[in-house]
């Protein structure tokens, strides 16, 4: 470049020149100044990372709308599209991003405590779905702690304050809670969308909802699902943030002590759970005769191991604990584990209300005999810190204890079989076809039936009453509801096949053509239209808790500055996106708890003004008021150069 060899001109001189000259030459001078390098100013630039349209038909349009408006206010914005593993790795493990567009990892309407690992400063250095924003604010920490410890009747206050604080500081911007459509076939399986299923119960392909399907007589007993997410074909590690997402079928491979159905917590591996205070403790009695998919017996030792292991997957081998990349908030509730016998253990919990503490019971229980050999510390290339074999393992054999057992993967398909000895079906299986292996393995066959019948009456809410904080309407399940009756009967399938396809339209096509029973992937409007072709096909829609949001990397300038984040949030017309991108099937939101009863009054979306109550769009009808927006950036101390570029000090 000739400018490289040009006579050095002082920056001041250039600025004076730029100021004195007309607009026609100012642009040119501005560029020269850019190329001179060294100290001075540079245009603010932001990369927006997200998934390609094939993987997520909604994320790119949101990102594009943001980019257009960022550019309008003079920011150099560019779209970086990458596959889901790559995106998760860059955002969740390497924290290498400015802004990402994605979905919050909520499969269920979140308890406010689900915000704890997302925003508490102590998680900012951890990997996975723990504070990927790097948000560190002591006020926020206090509020997160307060909602944990508050008694049920006073919890609303810190929760509302927390939401107000998050709305004000915008470590991430909630955009739209989408209404998701699943295409299902009704000629082989029915009861996809039972009338009595509440909204919180999730959609037809929510893993545990599949257990409630009913079969059509004479139909084949293979359930086929189509998804664009191919990660299960290569990696079945339930604690990896990169390879696991919410509502993966792996949720049916690994059981937890209790199951959150969305409306209540039901005992799952636990047969009985009793709570006591001082210190807060939960005593757990496991069901009888639990077995792993490899035939080994599942004992309280495995459960105790899991809680220790998820807290530090090096089991003390590393100087600093290397915790799980998922479920971290829930694990942080458990302070100590005591295994009392083969089927009894107790968890000592941190100082929390019971409504929060029970969340600790929903982590997947891992077989100690498989995972205890995965504590070796590893430093995979391209990754920031140390990790362990547990987190890098692809866990290909996926030995769990859940209703589905992993069989095989290959050719774009993952195959699961119904795990015959699972506790759900022992009563449904007649003694003659009960698997011999199970009975002899645990030697408790005569008591099995009685156990299950006792189960239907255990854990009356009164068990917990004496020392429990007073219940409120919000904490419905301080003690457990009766055992999982709803999941009891034998499901109408023996095999579940998940087929990977390359886009939502293909998934819809497979269902329409009769080659799949349901889509397990988000469908765009165009893909939903594919479903019309066939008679036995129907679209089922439900509100997803995994709301779309902009995640900001608050470790970096300029997004370290909350004023900038607020202005970036104000460049997004949420209501417009809900209408155009989601075809009206989405709700614009202003709080991560928007879909719950906990939503703060001040953050309810105002349907009249159709504007965000905290960070309203800087414009009207999707049209950005560019000058106003630029003025706002000037108000917070930013400058524009002669090219109308938003500038910042060069690093």
């Amino acid at each position, binding site marked *: 470049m000739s400018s490289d060899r040009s006579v050095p001109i002082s920056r001041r001189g250039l600025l004076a020149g730029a100021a004195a000259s007309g607009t026609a030459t100012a642009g040119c001078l501005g560029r020269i100044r850019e190329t001179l390098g060294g100290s001075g100013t540079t245009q603010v630039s932001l990369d927006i990372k997200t998934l390609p*349209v094939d993987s997520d038909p909604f994320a790119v349009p949101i990102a594009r709308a943001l980019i257009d408006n960022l550019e309008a206010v003079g920011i150099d914005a*560019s779209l*970086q*599209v990458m596959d889901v593993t790559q995106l998760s790795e860059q955002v969740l493990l390497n924290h290498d991003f400015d802004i990402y567009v994605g979905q919050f990892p909520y499969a269920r309407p979140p308890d406010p405590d689900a915000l704890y690992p997302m925003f508490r400063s102590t998680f900012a250095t951890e990997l996975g779905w723990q504070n990927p924003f790097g948000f560190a604010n002591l006020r926020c920490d206090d509020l997160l702690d307060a909602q944990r410890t508050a008694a049920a009747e006073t919890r609303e206050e810190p929760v509302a304050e927390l939401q107000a604080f998050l709305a004000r500081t915008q470590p991430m911007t909630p955009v739209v809670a989408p209404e998701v459509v699943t295409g299902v076939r009704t000629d082989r399986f029915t009861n996809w969308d039972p009338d009595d299923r509440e909204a919180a119960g999730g959609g037809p392909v929510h893993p545990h909802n599949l257990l409630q399907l009913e079969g059509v007589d004479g139909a084949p007993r293979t359930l086929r699902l189509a998804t664009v997410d191919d990660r299960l074909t290569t990696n079945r590690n339930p604690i990896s943030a990169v390879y696991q997402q919410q509502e993966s079928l792996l949720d049916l491979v690994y059981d937890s002590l209790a199951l959150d159905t969305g409306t209540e917590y039901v005992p799952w591996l636990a047969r009985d759970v009793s709570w006591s205070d001082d210190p807060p403790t939960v005593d757990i009695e496991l069901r009888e005769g639990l077995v792993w998919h490899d035939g080994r017996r599942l004992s309280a030792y495995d459960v105790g191991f899991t809680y220790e292991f998820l807290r530090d997957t090096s089991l003390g081998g590393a100087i600093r604990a290397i915790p799980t990349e998922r479920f971290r908030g829930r694990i942080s509730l458990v302070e100590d584990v005591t295994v009392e016998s083969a089927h009894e253990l107790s968890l000592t919990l941190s100082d929390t209300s019971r409504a929060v503490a029970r969340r600790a019971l929903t982590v997947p229980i891992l077989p100690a005999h498989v995972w205890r050999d995965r504590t070796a510390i590893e430093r995979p290339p391209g990754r920031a810190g140390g990790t362990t074999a547990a987190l890098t393992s692809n866990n290909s054999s996926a030995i769990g204890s859940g209703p589905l057992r992993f069989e095989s993967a290959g050719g774009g398909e993952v195959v699961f079989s119904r795990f015959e000895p699972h506790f759900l079906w022992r009563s449904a299986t007649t003694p003659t076809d009960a698997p011999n292996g199970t009975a002899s393995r645990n030697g408790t066959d005569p008591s099995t039936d009685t156990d299950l019948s006792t189960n239907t009456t255990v854990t009356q809410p009164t068990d917990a009453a004496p020392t429990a904080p007073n219940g409120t309407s919000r904490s419905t399940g301080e003690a457990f509801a009766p055992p999982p009756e709803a999941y009891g009967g034998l499901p109408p399938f023996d095999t579940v096949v998940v087929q990977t396809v390359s*886009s939502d*339209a*293909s998934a819809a*096509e497979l269902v329409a053509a009769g080659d799949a029973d349901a889509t397990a992937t988000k469908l765009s409007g165009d893909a939903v239209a594919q479903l019309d072709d066939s008679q036995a096909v129907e679209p089922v829609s439900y509100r997803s808790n995994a709301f779309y949001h902009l995640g900001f990397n608050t470790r970096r300038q300029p997004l370290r500055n909350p004023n900038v984040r607020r202005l970036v949030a104000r460049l997004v017309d949420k209501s417009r996106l809900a209408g155009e991108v989601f075809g009206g099937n989405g709700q614009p939101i202003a709080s991560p708890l928007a879909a719950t009863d906990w939503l703060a009054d001040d953050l309810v979306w105002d349907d009249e003004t159709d504007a965000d109550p905290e960070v309203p769009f800087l414009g009207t009808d999707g049209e950005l008021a560019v000058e106003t927006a630029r003025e706002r950036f000037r108000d917070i101390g930013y400058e524009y150069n002669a090219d109308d570029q938003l500038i910042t000090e060069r690093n």
Partner: protein
Amino acid sequence: MLRALVFEVSVVVAALCAVGAVTIVGRTRLTALRVEIQPRLRESAPYLAVLIAVLALNSAVRDYAQEISWFIGLNITDSIEAIEGGFVAAVQSVQTELLTAYFSYVYVFGYVFLLIFPLLAYAALDDRTPFKRLVVAYSFNYLLGLLLYIVFVAYGPRNVGVAENLLYITNPEYQFLTSAVNTNTNVFPSLHTSLSATVAVFAYRTREAYPIWFGLAIGLAASIILSTMYLGIHWGTDVLVGLGLAALCVGLSRRYVDGEPSQSRVSSESKSSTGITE
């Protein structure tokens, strides 16, 4: 679904080839071919072996290459967009149902026919050169394409919201076919373009032997190249680089396979010309 589609494509392309054999290659050459097919194939065997090896390598390392690609590769999607902006969107602005249907069929069926038929047609020529060179050119296309796919990661315009996904929305079943052959990050360069252009250049060179094919191949290749952009699959940049790749591969094929004037002496009984117009 995939099997049904492969069957459908095979049947259609076989039918087209049969028609082409009769009308374009002609009876005389076909009759001669029946006798000569064995020695000709034997002579071309090393070249065919290379092509088969390249194709096998391609499918064997595709998944693995994808991972290396993310690891070492340059994600150039945004750079491509910065260069050409809304060019593909402009191409799509002339959208009609008829055009979409035409380009979809051309992209899938026309393309396979365009690649297969000249192998048959050139096998029927006395001069072995075009056949050998075409096979070599194909090999280079796939080999260099694979290398470029490893070095560059890029999504097509349909995947970043620049263009509509016309192929898969109107014919979603085709995606089972294309995704079985390639992944959606392999758009730079466009192999549809480079291979089509390669065939077109060969058709030009053999226009004396196959004048009808010359016209047909040019039209088909142009349609396929346009279709990659019209359908929102490729960027204009992919197409340009694809054309460059075609030129390179044709050049390389000429370098590695000598023209064989001596061949015409060997097969002197045959009265047809070499078919090559240098």
